[in-house]
């Protein structure tokens, strides 16, 4: 448990560091939300000054940071100029949508990568291994942006998949099964793109971890005992190969979040990606900071979960952690 206390403390420090970094950049940046207003001849410079004063933009950096910290403590995360509301409720819904998208994509990508990786490690010269390595090399070289655009084109031209938003207008009011099915049909295209984008790296790591595990002596021993091939692969070798994969699960979240930002923007999924883009174009800086903090929080939470899983899966770490 002390191990976890330590990790949590580190995560918290990281979040504080990121917020400090954001504020330092904010301070260095020329212009703010109201400086665009100065170009408008109908708005007098006194008005702009009083607005800036009202929102506290004229105060020095430490004061602004302190105020922001206080609003975080109130659960507000700063104030959005463009929406004229606290940031936290804006983020809440968007965060749920992004979480839905990325968790679905993570789940599906891993449930595809593990069997494919295990089987292609089991027979490295087989047709499956060859087609997997060819496919992952191609996918690895295809940028996420292109994948998203191609997915969008496919979805629009075929008309099978629904694109844009996460629910159809006429079904918006419906509840229960109908609503779930509608959201799922909107999810399908972005999730597919994300899975295709993250699959090659996962597949490569699974294959190489499995190869290492299969080369170890206990597998030969199990084989000599006459244990079946499938049982050796999934019951004996896979748990041994699991360790690097679990830590990859946390690390791959970072690239997944970045990819999901693009996919959300291109496919119109109402996650935090479009919110961030909008906030940048509006120079709505507290929303930008809020989104960055949120994405860091997702990442840190993913890493902590991976640590937890590792702790459960590997007795060596458990012992080390308790000592």
């Amino acid at each position, binding site marked *: 448990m002390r191990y976890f206390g330590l990790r949590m403390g580190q995560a918290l420090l990281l979040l504080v560091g990121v917020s400090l970094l954001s504020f330092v*950049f904010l301070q260095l940046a020329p212009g703010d939300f109201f400086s665009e207003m100065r170009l408008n001849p109908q708005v007098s410079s006194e008005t702009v000054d009083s607005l800036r004063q009202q929102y506290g933009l004229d105060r020095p950096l430490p004061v602004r940071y302190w105020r922001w910290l206080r609003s975080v403590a109130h659960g507000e995360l700063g104030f959005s100029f463009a929406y004229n509301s606290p940031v936290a409720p804006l983020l809440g819904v968007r965060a749920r949508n992004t979480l839905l998208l990325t968790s679905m994509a993570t789940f599906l990508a891993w449930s595809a990568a593990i069997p494919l990786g295990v089987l292609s490690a089991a027979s490295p010269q087989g047709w499956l291994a060859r087609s997997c390595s060819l496919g992952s090399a191609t996918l690895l070289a295809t*940028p996420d942006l*292109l994948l998203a*655009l191609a997915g969008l084109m496919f979805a629009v031209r075929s008309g099978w998949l629904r694109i844009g938003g996460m629910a159809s207008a006429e079904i918006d009011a419906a509840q229960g099964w109908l609503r779930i099915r509608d959201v799922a049909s909107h999810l399908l295209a972005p999730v597919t793109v994300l899975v295709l984008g993250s699959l090659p790296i996962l597949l490569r790591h699974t294959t190489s971890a499995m190869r290492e595990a299969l080369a170890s002596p206990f597998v030969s021993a199990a084989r000599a005992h006459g244990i079946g091939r499938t049982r050796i692969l999934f019951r004996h070798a896979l748990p041994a190969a699991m360790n690097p994969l679990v830590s990859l699960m946390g690390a791959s979240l970072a690239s997944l979040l970045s990819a999901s930002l693009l996919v959300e923007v291109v496919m119109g999924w109402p996650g935090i990606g479009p919110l961030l883009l909008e906030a*940048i174009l509006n120079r709505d*800086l507290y929303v930008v900071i809020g*989104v960055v903090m949120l994405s860091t929080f997702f990442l840190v939470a993913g890493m902590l979960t991976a640590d937890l899983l590792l702790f459960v899966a590997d007795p060596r770490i458990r012992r080390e952690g308790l000592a």
Partner: protein
Amino acid sequence: MRASPRLWLPALCLGTVHVVVLLAAFFAPYDYSEQDRSLPFAPPTRIHFVDAQDRFHFQPFVYRRVEHAGQFRGYEEVTETRYPIRFFFHGAAYRLGSLLSSDRHLFGVEMPARISLMGTDAYGRDVFSRLLYGGQISLFAGLLATTLSLLAGTSLGIMAGFYGTWLDAAIMRLAELFLALPWLYLLFAIRAFLPLHISPAQAFLLVIAVIGLVGWARPARLVRGVALSARERAYVRAARGFGASDLYLLRRHILPQTQGVIFTQAALLIPQYVLAEVTLSFLGLGIGEPVPSWGSMLASLQQYHVLVGCWWMFFPGLMLIPIFMSYGQLSDVLQERLQS
């Protein structure tokens, strides 16, 4: 380094692409901003050998195209006159750098006809020409940003590894901060704090600076590791014992050790940074009109009718695939060499 086909093949491929892109003015038949408002979103020009009278010609030729009467965005060929494709064609004058000026293009056709190998965009500009000019922006933004990133990363990493103590701790904590953020979010956040409405030249420098400075942390960490182990080597201690200065040690013993890591990182970072520029420009946060970048060219695909009807607008994105494959191959080979 020993040359093997696995190394020089992708290197050759990349070299060719970069040279062609640098000499875009010669290889492209038109200037990137030359418009033909009568030919918006025209598909790639068909190159003929057989004319309307079924006669075969050794010299390939094209026909002039006009808008189909009564049909929205359909084009038909006017088969009265043939326009043979001429090589080393006298077209628009251009300058390469500041010394060479010429009007020779690799190929072209006589005026009212136009040759567009990859179709045209919304203003009737030739996509192929814009692709070549856009490569100058997209590819070189990646290269320059990588240089910046490696310079910053190497110098900070070496300082951290060589001097150690509090400097090491401070630099590495900062690096962890940068690595902890999903990097596209970080890139966007920093872009958010900078002015939006600026000229293309300023935007180019700004994008390079932002991309390059966001990515310093990973090379810094790796270089630090190398410097840390090099510092304790016997010959370095011996040199120090003989009274070598820090600067001499760094230049003579530590920096050469980091070479392998730096090259491997470069092969990994360049494609990532090219993609970063493309992404920024795609979303309108990078380099804007009229200067083409592959990202801003792809941005027209955000319109419904372009996405559905104009497949040739995907070319700037497709160009990335062979380039990324080459870089991927290069980085794989370099990685293997580093580990062996």
